[in-house]
């Protein structure tokens, strides 16, 4: 990344670290012997899928293990002291002062009852690094460096009075306040919208550079880590896959696994040309009570194609889906399906109308009843809509499982016994069981790892080809749009900003909002963020 001056001293060195976690009455290996070296002022990116052990390793760098975990072997030498040998009381002298932590969900990490500046400076004041007035003054300066609006007064607010992106930056200020030697970022931007993510990333990077702090940046997003890290370490199943300087890692990954991670983002669907529409929203106004969320929305969905609805949280894309399914009857406007008007309320729709529109949810965990087996989950629509029973039903369930690339042995499993990708596949099978014409996919891949995402997207594409399905694909991730969509609808604040074929929407000139959205999507180029910030006028949100 950018030039660092003194990078000679080794700040942290981990040797042969092994960590075990306790579950199902047994100790399981989480980390199997990892070495790690971090120099002063260096940013190390830890990357891997869920369960790779990256968070456990990040925390272990601070000598901390989560409840139910234990360090069995290895040493963690921080500035000449082996943290693995210290008691919690002794380690507490380091925590919060010499090493600090930025958590994934800032909203959950802040105490809602105390002012931001009190929380920002708490550990600095308690450990006697600064007195209250100088710590407050310093916090305000940090807010300024982090590009927060009104840095003198924002600290007087409570956590609910600032936005998610701002809160994440306040947490960075909190971590920076005692001027630590080591900062651990654990997926700090995963929960943010892309446009917010850019600003937070830029602030984090500049502050780490300014104070020459060493940092460990944990993420599953390659493009993000490319912006932040000097060195990238790839983990899988608690083992190191490879480690290299960022540029070298991006241009020439050595291991097969790393290459497969890199290739996911290149999936792209060849665009279908539009035919007759199967579903059209005409002048839809809808909202919850007095709050209006959708403002005369028109969306056309051509038969057999995929329409991606993109936008940030609060743009109304999920509300549009609720109107289509009938969960939220519109105030005015009409939903036409196969040329006929659908009754606004779900209760007034016929069983056949309900059958033809199916939905797949973002969180496969909560979309399936944890007490029902896969057989019951997929079997119910078969029984309910198509009246199948007994061996006919079993046969059809087996076929459906085959369609989603799982075998019949899954039939007796409960959702808790499936992985994230398998759960989402079962949800797809449940939707398919109803033999629908039209499927709404609400952020179906955003909770999954990239390789798993790729599998799900390929499956959806294949099913579309085989069964002639039409998808409405709600997402905030532009690379997913590239992979699956024919047409794109860009939404912002309850209105459709732009709509058309993917190639048209992604070609300049764009409306202002589309431009902002598209340019905020991180790219795999390590200079992307630097260039983007140079191009964009300085703004504070």
């Amino acid at each position, binding site marked *: 990344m950018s030039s660092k001056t003194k990078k000679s001293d080794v700040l942290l060195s981990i040797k042969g670290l092994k960590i075990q976690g306790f579950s199902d009455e047994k100790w399981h290996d989480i980390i199997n012997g990892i070495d790690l070296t971090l120099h002063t002022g260096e940013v190390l990116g830890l990357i891997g899928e869920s*369960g790779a052990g990256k968070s456990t390793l990040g925390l272990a760098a601070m000598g901390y293990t989560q409840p139910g975990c234990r360090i069995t072997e290895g040493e963690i030498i921080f500035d000449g002291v082996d943290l693995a040998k210290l008691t919690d009381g002794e380690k507490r002298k380091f925590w919060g002062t010499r090493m600090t932590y930025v958590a994934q969900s800032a909203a959950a990490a802040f105490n809602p009852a105390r002012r931001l500046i009190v929380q920002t400076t708490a550990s600095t004041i308690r450990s006697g690094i600064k007195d209250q007035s100088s710590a407050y003054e310093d916090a305000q300066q940090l807010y300024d460096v982090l590009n927060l609006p009104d840095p003198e007064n924002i600290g007087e607010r409570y956590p609910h009075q600032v936005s998610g992106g701002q809160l994440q930056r306040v947490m960075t200020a909190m971590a920076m306040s005692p001027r630590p030697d080591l900062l651990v970022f654990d997926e700090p931007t995963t929960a*943010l919208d892309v446009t917010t993510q850019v600003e937070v990333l830029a602030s984090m990077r500049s502050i780490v550079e300014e104070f020459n702090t060493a940092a460990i940046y944990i993420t599953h997003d390659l493009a993000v880590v490319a912006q932040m890290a000097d060195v990238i370490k790839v983990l899988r199943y608690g083992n190191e896959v490879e480690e290299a300087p960022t540029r070298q890692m991006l241009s020439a990954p050595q291991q097969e696994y790393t290459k497969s991670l890199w290739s996911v983002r290149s999936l792209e669907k060849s665009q279908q040309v539009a035919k007759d529409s199967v579903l059209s929203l005409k002048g839809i106004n809808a909202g919850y009570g007095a709050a209006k969320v959708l403002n005369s929305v028109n969306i056309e969905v051509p038969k057999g194609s995929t329409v991606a609805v993109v936008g940030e949280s609060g743009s109304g894309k999920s509300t549009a889906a609720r109107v289509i399914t009938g969960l939220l009857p519109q105030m005015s406007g009409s939903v036409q399906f196969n040329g006929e008007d659908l009754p606004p309320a*779900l209760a007034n729709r016929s069983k056949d109308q309900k059958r033809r529109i199916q*939905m797949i949810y973002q969180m496969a965990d909560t*979309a399936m009843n944890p007490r029902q087996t896969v057989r019951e989950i997929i079997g119910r629509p078969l029984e309910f809509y198509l009246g199948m029973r007994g061996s006919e039903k079993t046969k059809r369930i087996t076929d459906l499982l085959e369609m989603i690339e799982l075998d019949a042995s899954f039939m007796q499993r409960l959702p808790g*016994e499936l992985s994230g990708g398998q759960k989402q596949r079962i949800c797809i099978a449940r939707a398919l069981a109803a033999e629908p014409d039209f499927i709404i996919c609400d952020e179906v891949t955003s909770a999954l790892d990239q390789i798993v995402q790729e599998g799900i997207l390929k499956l959806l594409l294949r099913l579309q080809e085989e069964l002639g399905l039409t998808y409405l694909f709600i997402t905030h991730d532009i690379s997913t749009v590239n992979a699956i969509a024919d047409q794109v609808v860009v939404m912002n604040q309850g209105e459709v900003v732009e709509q058309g074929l993917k190639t048209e929407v992604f070609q300049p000139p764009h409306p202002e909002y589309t431009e902002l959205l598209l340019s905020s999507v991180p790219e795999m180029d390590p200079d992307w963020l630097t260039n983007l910030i140079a191009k964009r006028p300085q703004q504070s949100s």
Partner: protein
Amino acid sequence: MTDIPKSYSATGEIGATLQKRSLWARFLLDLKKSPYTARFGMVVIFFYIFVALFAPWLAPYGESQVFPAPYEPWSKEFVFGTDQIGRDILSRMIYGARNTVGIAVATTFLAFLIGGSLGLAAAINRSWLDQILSRLVDVLMAIPSLIFALVLLSIFGSNITNLVLIIAVLDSTRVFRLTRAVALNVVVMDYVEAARLRGEGIGWIMRREILPNILPPLIAEFGLRFCFVFLTIAALSFLGVGIQPPTADWGSMVRDNASLIMFAQYDLRAGLTPLLPAAAIALLTVAINFVVDWFLQKTSGLKDE
């Protein structure tokens, strides 16, 4: 914001399959690891059930068989003596298990049927029905339940049917609140929405989608609620409006023989006689609480560390 689920597990991704155990095998495994308190509780409960079921065979005399000697002291013939009109106390204790426990179980079931189904309906409905039921429950809960039960029993007359109905309705308010509260967390889940979108009726959603997921806290509550019902019945019987003579019942047995306690200074065993049915009540309550504690700890995943 899009949250990444904390519960995501990668175990399945590597193809690791969990060992399937049958329900019975899992139960035995849990039993093996159960704490001593819970085992003690289960032994006591099974003992009570056994006594209640086989009362006619276990009891030396009939339930209300009167002997010519009232207030007989403890002897070989009458193990715990006889009461004020000469009935064998041991026999009445054994029959009392049947009556007191049986009525309490029936009442608790009824309370759960009423409170549980209304609570589920209120949680699913979330509008007028919820409002009406919740406010009604608030009103009922505002009146001290023992006094309310006394009033109602003296209005409608104290027979067993009225007793069961009145206590069931009064206790169903607590069950309603609990069911509604836990069901509210489940109602917002996507799978309930998915069932609605499919067009399922309210009955299916209640029974198949929600009930299985709120069962653990309800079962735990069942144990505790049973204790309260049991104590209420005993208290009402002690006050004379509960289970009526000649039916044997622990609450009224305490009252009938209460005066014997004054003779403890002359004969300790005479003083113990009224305490025996009270001890039977206390022992069962404690035993059930032990088992419920264990069950709650197991299902909630809380650890004592």
